[in-house]
């Protein structure tokens, strides 16, 4: 059982028998007032979305989902293919089901695929992924002011901000929960 204070983006809960994922979340509280938990929820089966504000005292059932470790193989016609390494069982998720995670999927990445009964519905990423930088302006040495950043793009097409010394061809680590640059990775 979850409490309202457990609510956060990507949490999966069960409502009227269906699994829902929180796709957008904000905590608001007038200084002397009650805590309010604003959620945008997406039905993981039919994709329907609705917005609702919850309060302290509200409780939630965890979604009845099974996780299976699988590897990302490829994307074709907006279908994302994953395989279980031991059984070679393959499943497909739609672009919508993959959601924001698509910016972090590199070949053979180990992920958790979520099943509702036998049906694959969604994906849980590892907290950190390493991806190769494909687009970055060259580093002008004079421009080394600490704290400055520049836009870069990684192999999946995902764009983010990174320190000025990051160069094309390098591997970087990204926190998939925030989508932010963490560090360079030496291979």
């Amino acid at each position, binding site marked *: 059982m979850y409490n309202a204070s457990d609510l956060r983006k990507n949490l999966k809960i069960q409502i009227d028998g269906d699994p829902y994922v929180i796709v957008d979340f*904000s905590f*608001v509280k*007038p200084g002397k*007032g*009650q805590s*309010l938990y604003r959620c945008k929820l997406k039905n993981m089966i039919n994709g329907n979305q609705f917005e609702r*504000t919850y309060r302290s005292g509200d409780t939630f059932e965890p979604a009845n989902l099974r996780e299976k470790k699988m590897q990302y193989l490829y994307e074709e016609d907006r279908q994302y293919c994953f395989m279980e390494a031991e059984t070679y069982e393959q499943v497909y998720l739609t672009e919508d089901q993959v959601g924001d995670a698509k910016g972090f999927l590199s070949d053979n990445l180990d992920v958790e695929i979520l099943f509702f009964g036998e049906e694959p519905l969604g994906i849980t990423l590892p907290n950190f992924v390493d991806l190769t930088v494909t687009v970055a302006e060259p580093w002008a040495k004079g421009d080394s002011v600490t*704290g*400055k950043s520049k836009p870069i793009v990684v192999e999946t097409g995902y764009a983010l901000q990174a*320190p000025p010394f990051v160069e094309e061809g390098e591997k970087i680590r990204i926190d998939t929960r925030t989508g932010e640059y963490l560090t360079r990775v030496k291979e």
Partner: protein
Amino acid sequence: MMATDWRLTKKRGALQIRALMIRAIRRFFTDRDYLEVETPSRIPGPAPECHIDAIPSDGWYLHTSPELCMKRLLAAEYPRIFQITRCFRGAERGSRHIPEFTLLEWYESGSDYCRMMEVCEELIISVAHDLGHEGNITYRGRQIVMHRPWERISVTEAFRRYSPVSMEEALEGNRFDEIMVDEIEPRIGTEGPVFLYDYPVALGALARAKQADPRVAERFELYMGGLELANAFSELTDAQEQRTRFEEELKNRRASGKAAYPMPEKFLAALPAMPESSGIALGVDRLAMIFTDSESIDDVVAFTPEDL
């Protein structure tokens, strides 16, 4: 070579502005003969308020605000005092909330909430000036017009203008907070800072009721750039009335299954000696968000709980 922590490195600019801002705040108050004080962070219990949850600490609690101790100083003839201190509130986490945050509180005897609005204007304009802002401030792509006096609008009037139901109906239906954040906050102060004043008396446990209309308390909130920045009262000095208000808050806490704090007896005992005064708590992190043009409170503190 150790990789530098980029998330920390990139905050340098914001943390520098924050430090200058705090220096400017201190200068404002010391120039005006306010005494800077320090009161304990760990106390037997906070002021009993229904929706503010203190974090337990070895049988006592971490303070949620330095209010009780600062008012005991006021009662002991410290007429102008200020404090910049860390406060702690459980389970408050969002883009504008962090459980350990920094409050600026100041109190002035012989003052009321109307005078306090003027001091707010003077403080923020003075700090802005020290940070190199002459005239307006840009926050999140929008101009905040700083020209005084800032707009003042009563809560009753704000509900009349922007809410589908009146303030009284909202209170009865337990929808006051929801309407405040969903309907009113997005629509007020779109030009410049705004003082929202005269809250229902039930929502100002430590504020004096207004003589002309005892249904409301002399309380205001300052909003700037859409952020709730400060909360002020004409302070309640009637100890018996204060005890009754606390009992009501404690009853509501128990009814919602929350920890019931001890009645702050030493504070209540000091209250009869406290002069007519006004006091205010201003969120230092939120003010830093405005001066650093930050979207999230995470951008103006070096470490969030998640970083530790």
